């Protein structure tokens, strides 16, 4: 473990004084700056079926915790097959009776209402999201919640303009859609899934992630406040077995899944032989490519954002850094310096950069893969920051000297771990970036517009960020090539995946 104190400052050759270095963190402690808005949590959450909160038939509850303290936040109903079935029956009644027949302009108004009501309670939702998921409050406050509202707002406007979604064809809703979402962006993923489905006239049965169900159930309160007809959105909470029941239910005309490639493949196999439509948004191992003409400081900031945003729990995280050899040394040195000032700790602190790992299970997985990386010959650098005594935390980590065959260059770590490789030519960068089973996203850092377009053309990835990373927008389609899944979410392309052509 590296020492906590910063290395002794080198003296300036002229004056003999220490060269100024803007690293305050290890000289004196920061005062905490906690966000204090009330998340308005209930001690117990039931399932949301047919417009009402109802206990699970089995009467079982499971605890959901704050990963930053390991303390229980609330208990949540565990949905069994009978509950999932009740949710689907309610969704079908709503699809046939109300939602599927409603004029698009009226559906739009409900979605606009939901967006507005979520904006009204944004801070409350941000705190709840941070408590349950471990992400820094500045991210849930400035990204997750506003972006979730933006998704409802964007898709609301589509509901009465569906004749423009598929030129030359008419579109119709599919019926009932089953959706399973992950724990990294609990509210945002829910918005990505629900908003386009509802705009198109489908109804939904959705399972939030096992570890992060709270904001979904809080949003159900907003559905009630908005007067959304019963059964249009049904939420069933639970673990893998509940998710499998949601995916396999015969009423589901389509299933949409966001999660790991491993589970995505299991779902695809389990649905083989059925006529269910699918979209899969799976894992990634994105290359973030820095050329020697890139603005280096900006690129380093982008790389830090690319991999440490949301503790690296991002399917499109820039987890493979490809650096042009002439600037590799400088980039790595700057990255190490930048890591030293990252503040890891209490997610509710407004100054925290990196929050808690979502679960003990995920923390163990990250630790294991980093150990493998070191055993396979990568060199480890970790930020020398103090970590809280309780909760699931992991130091921002760089692995240098990584080669393409290393597991840390091939497998999704889903944590704050950056694997660094180098390249000499543009062709080599393309070759290395594409040498993966995944193809979700990629980043390019260069001063040349023509090179951006060349790289964007060559990279086999669904999203290419140039001189930026981890940017999202409801108007911008998101989704993968190859084993990162199929179908798009967002934009005109995304909404068509919730329609059938007639």
């Amino acid at each position, binding site marked *: 473990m590296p020492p906590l104190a910063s290395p002794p400052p080198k003296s300036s050759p002229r004056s003999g004084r220490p060269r100024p270095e803007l690293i305050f963190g290890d000289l004196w402690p920061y005062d905490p700056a906690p966000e204090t808005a009330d998340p308005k949590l209930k001690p117990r959450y039931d399932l949301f079926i047919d417009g009402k909160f109802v206990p699970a038939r089995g009467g079982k509850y499971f605890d959901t915790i704050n990963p930053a303290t390991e303390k229980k936040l609330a208990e949540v109903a565990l949905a069994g097959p009978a509950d999932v079935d009740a949710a689907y029956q309610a969704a079908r009644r709503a699809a046939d009776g109300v939602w599927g027949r409603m004029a698009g302009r009226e559906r739009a108004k409900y979605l606009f209402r939901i967006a507005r009501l979520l904006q009204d309670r944004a801070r409350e939702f941000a705190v709840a999201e941070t408590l349950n998921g471990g992400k820094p409050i500045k991210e849930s406050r400035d990204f997750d919640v506003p972006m979730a509202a*933006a998704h409802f707002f964007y898709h609301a406007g589509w509901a009465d303009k569906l004749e423009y979604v*598929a*030129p*030359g*064809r008419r579109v119709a809703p599919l019926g009932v859609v089953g959706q399973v979402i992950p724990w990294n962006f609990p509210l945002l993923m829910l918005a990505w899934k629900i908003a386009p489905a509802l705009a198109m006239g489908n109804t939904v049965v959705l399972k939030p992630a096992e570890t992060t169900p709270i904001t979904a159930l809080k949003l159900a309160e907003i559905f009630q406040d908005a007067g959304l007809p019963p059964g249009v959105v049904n939420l069933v909470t639970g673990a893998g077995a509940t998710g499998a029941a949601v995916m396999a239910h015969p009423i589901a005309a389509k299933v949409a899944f966001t999660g790991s*490639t491993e589970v*995505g*493949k*299991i779902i*695809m*196999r389990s*649905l*083989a*032989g059925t006529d269910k439509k699918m979209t*899969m948004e*799976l894992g990634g191992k994105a290359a973030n490519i820095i050329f020697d003409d890139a603005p280096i400081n900006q690129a380093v900031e982008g790389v830090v954002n690319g991999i440490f945003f949301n503790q690296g729990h991002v399917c499109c995280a820039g987890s493979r850094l490809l650096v042009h050899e002439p600037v590799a040394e400088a980039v790595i040195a700057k990255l190490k310096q930048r890591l030293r000032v990252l503040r890891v700790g209490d997610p509710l602190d407004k100054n925290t950069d990196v929050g808690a790992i979502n679960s003990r299970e995920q923390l163990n997985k990250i630790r294991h893969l980093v150990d493998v990386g070191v055993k396979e010959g990568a060199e480890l650098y970790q930020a020398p920051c103090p970590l809280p005594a309780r909760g699931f935390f992991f130091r921002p980590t760089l692995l240098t000297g990584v080669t393409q065959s290393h597991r840390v260059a091939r497998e999704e770590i889903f944590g704050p771990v950056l694997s660094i490789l180098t390249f000499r030519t543009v062709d080599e960068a393309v070759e290395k970036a594409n040498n993966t*089973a995944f193809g979700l996203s990629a980043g390019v850092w260069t001063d040349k*517009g023509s090179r*951006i*377009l060349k790289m*964007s053309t060559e990279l086999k*990835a*669904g*999203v*290419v*960020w*140039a*001189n*930026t990373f981890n*940017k999202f*927008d409801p*108007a*911008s*389609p*998101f*989704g993968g*090539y*190859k*084993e*990162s*899944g*199929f179908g*798009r979410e967002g*934009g*005109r*392309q995304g909404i068509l995946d919730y329609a059938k*052509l007639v």
Partner: protein
Amino acid sequence: MPRLPITKTPKVYVGGAFIRSESARTFPLRDARGAFYANIPQCTRKDLRNAVEAAAKAGPGWARRTAYNRGQILYRLAEMLEARRAEMAEALGVGGIGRAAAVREVSAAVDRLIYYAGWADKYEQVLGNVNPVAAPFFNFTVTEPMGIVGIVAPDPAPLLGLISLVAPVITSGNTTVALASEKAPYPAIVLGEMLATSDLPGGVVNLLTGFRKELVPTFATHTHLRAVSAVASADERKAIQLGAADSVKRTRLLKAEERIDWFSADAQHLYAIRDFVEFKTTWHPIGS
């Protein structure tokens, strides 16, 4: 004494060359009256893998052609088929299709090629777009070909069905390995000869003949096939979907047990192209 006609040895068109199966296996094709017609190559899984390699080699070059050029080449293929309509109608006749129906099918196949030839430099304008994101970026979504697409053609309409599946896939720059109708493989043998003279680069369309039972499982599991487009039975669909899961392969499966009207205008549309493209979204910075 009447002249004994020369019969043609059927060969499949793979990688721009006419080959027999690596296994040297064949199966006898009989005409509608039950008389022996020719020995058709009974392609193997190894032949399929070789064809995938040929398609992989041809892929980048075909995808880089300009859309205008791909459209012209598809049009050229239609010209080749138009010029040899009689020969193709005869090939369809071997499978028992009457003369008038055969001529109608060939004409429809030519028209289908023309339809997709025209799409080559337009589908991007309809499927792609610029996205108004709330940040200083020029954000645009374009399509790209998926790569190599496996095709399993239907038995009814052995020519029109095959072309209806192949044409939209290659329009966008994919390359294909296609299994011809098992019951009526001869039109695909003749089609290979037209492909060879059509300016279509070798390896873009690779045609195999053989048995579905032997080859469909490999279409399902071959990881270099990024997608499968098939007219398949319930069992085959399940097998293809199971195999597709291993590499998250895209599938577009039509039901063999349902009657598909390949002649209808609904059998050709933009969305048959869309099913075999990936959407790529680029965030290009705007600034000084």
